[in-house]
């Protein structure tokens, strides 16, 4: 991936309103992404997280406002794994190579392309799986294949839609560590996630979105009771554990009819920080 000057602005959404048909999904959204940033967009289902990624990627027209991208910005998009057709006849190598759509006009890979694909697969620790069908891989390996497909285009900005959706704790850690390594090498990353404690709390910057931007900043400033309640429309409580914010569902804790109330809940094991020992922000 390319090293980009840390504060070089890659793109900016200014007053963006857009949607599907007559229904506005995003309303007056402002968001700037700089080189080297690692941003998590959180919000309830239907909040417009995927739409925001599409607007950033340029695959969705905005009704109002503007999207400004740095000239020549290279972006890559990793979709939700649930949208992948795992039965499609494609090997890992073919899947990664298909992203090299510009330049070479013949179907087969050049020596340089083969070397690049091998290097990216090796970087992601799936170098020995190049000839395997994508369905024959574990969940973590599958996610890595699509990250590899994104990286082979040498992007400056990586967009990921729910990269840890439906994965177990171990795989979530694996993906988070991988993305952290990529970000440490200069790749800017914007991802959407439902996972406040497992993902968002570990990121340097969190954007709370519910059609509009409710909060934007470091987790300590954004993952607060007030911002989260306005984002999710539900009662939420934020504890601090090991220096990190831990979001707790207040309703469940205090519901009188709950058969097994937890008056003093410990944060679940997966809420503890794993990427860095220091608290983000």
């Amino acid at each position, binding site marked *: 991936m390319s090293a980009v000057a840390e504060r070089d602005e890659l793109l900016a959404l200014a007053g963006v309103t857009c949607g599907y048909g007559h229904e506005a999904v995003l309303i007056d959204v402002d968001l700037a992404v700089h080189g080297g940033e690692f941003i998590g967009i959180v919000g309830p289902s239907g909040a417009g997280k995927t739409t925001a990624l599409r607007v950033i990627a340029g695959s969705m027209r905005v009704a109002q406002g503007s999207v400004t991208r740095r000239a020549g910005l290279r972006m890559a998009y990793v979709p939700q794994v649930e949208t992948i057709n795992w039965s*499609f006849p494609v090997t890992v190598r073919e899947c990664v190579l298909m992203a090299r759509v510009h330049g070479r006009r013949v179907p087969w890979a050049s020596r340089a392309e083969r070397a690049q694909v091998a290097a990216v697969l090796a970087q992601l620790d799936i170098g020995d799986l190049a000839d395997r069908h994508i369905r024959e891989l574990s969940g973590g390996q599958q996610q890595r294949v699509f990250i590899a497909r994104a990286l082979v285009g040498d992007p400056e900005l990586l967009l990921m839609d729910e990269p840890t959706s439906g994965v177990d704790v171990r795989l979530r850690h694996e993906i988070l560590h991988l993305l952290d390594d990529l970000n440490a090498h200069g790749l800017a990353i914007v991802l959407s996630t439902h996972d406040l404690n497992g993902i968002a709390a570990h990121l340097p910057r969190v954007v709370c979105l519910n059609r509009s931007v409710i909060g934007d900043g470091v987790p300590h400033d954004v993952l607060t009771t007030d911002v989260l309640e306005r984002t999710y429309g539900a009662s939420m409580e934020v504890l601090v554990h090991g220096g990190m914010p831990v979001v707790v569902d207040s309703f469940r804790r205090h519901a009188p009819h709950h058969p097994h109330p937890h008056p003093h809940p410990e944060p679940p094991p997966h809420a503890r920080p794993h990427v860095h020992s220091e608290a983000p922000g």
Partner: protein
Amino acid sequence: MIDEFLRPFDFEFFRNGLLVATMSGALCGAIGVYVVLKGMSYIGHGLSHAIFGGFAASSLLGINYLLGAGVWGVVSALMINGVTRRRIIGSDAAIGVITTASFALGLALFALFGTSGRSFDAALFGSILGVGFDDVIAIFVVSILAAVLIFLRYRALLFTTFDPEVADVAGVNTARMDALLMVVLAGSILATMQVLGVTLIAAALVIPAAVARMLTNSFARMLQLATGIGAVCGFAGMNLSYHLDIQSGPTIVLVAATLFALVFVVTGATGRRRAAAIAAPVPGGRAPLPARAD
């Protein structure tokens, strides 16, 4: 025995028919891979029926059927593509309306004014007898165009077929890829119609791709295999058609279907699992994105 096998090669119509059937099989086999993997089998079936309306109109107007049905087919293909991408109404309903109305128009025109020029039965079920040198030229030109498209836009077509949303972000003009594929599909159906007939072309598109899918997990190999399987079925089917005195379309399709059954049995559970995946809903047919922002 050998003499009996070679005897039909003395006839020009057979040589033409054999050339057209073999090239048609290869062409439909290759295009069929994209059609099947994009979940467009119904579009292929419907488009062949739509082209029948153009065939009938050009037959009655006395204009070259390749030109008349060709224009009709391309317009129908682009209409179907537009409706499918924009989700104006449900795509299967839109395809059903456009293609069956066109097919019905063709039948009505033949009922009202009778047939002239090309045979009505040949258009529906295919016939070796009506194959002329212009058919050979037509299938050759369409095959070259399809080969050039697949060769030069291989990765973009694969990306669009597998993951159109991400392909769009990566800079692939997926709308243009879909439109090009539809135009080539219309051309393939048109050029193949004389040998296979509009009612059976869908089988030539689907069966070689399905057989190839059972044999491999690689897209490149599937494309190569489907092309070869289509050509072999066209060649064998046309020869059998002559010797058994059965229309060429049904014979070619029956050869392909027999091969499918054989491969289905031989590849066992692995082949069945792969074949089942073809019939599963394909995200390639999922909601298309709005037009690019810039």
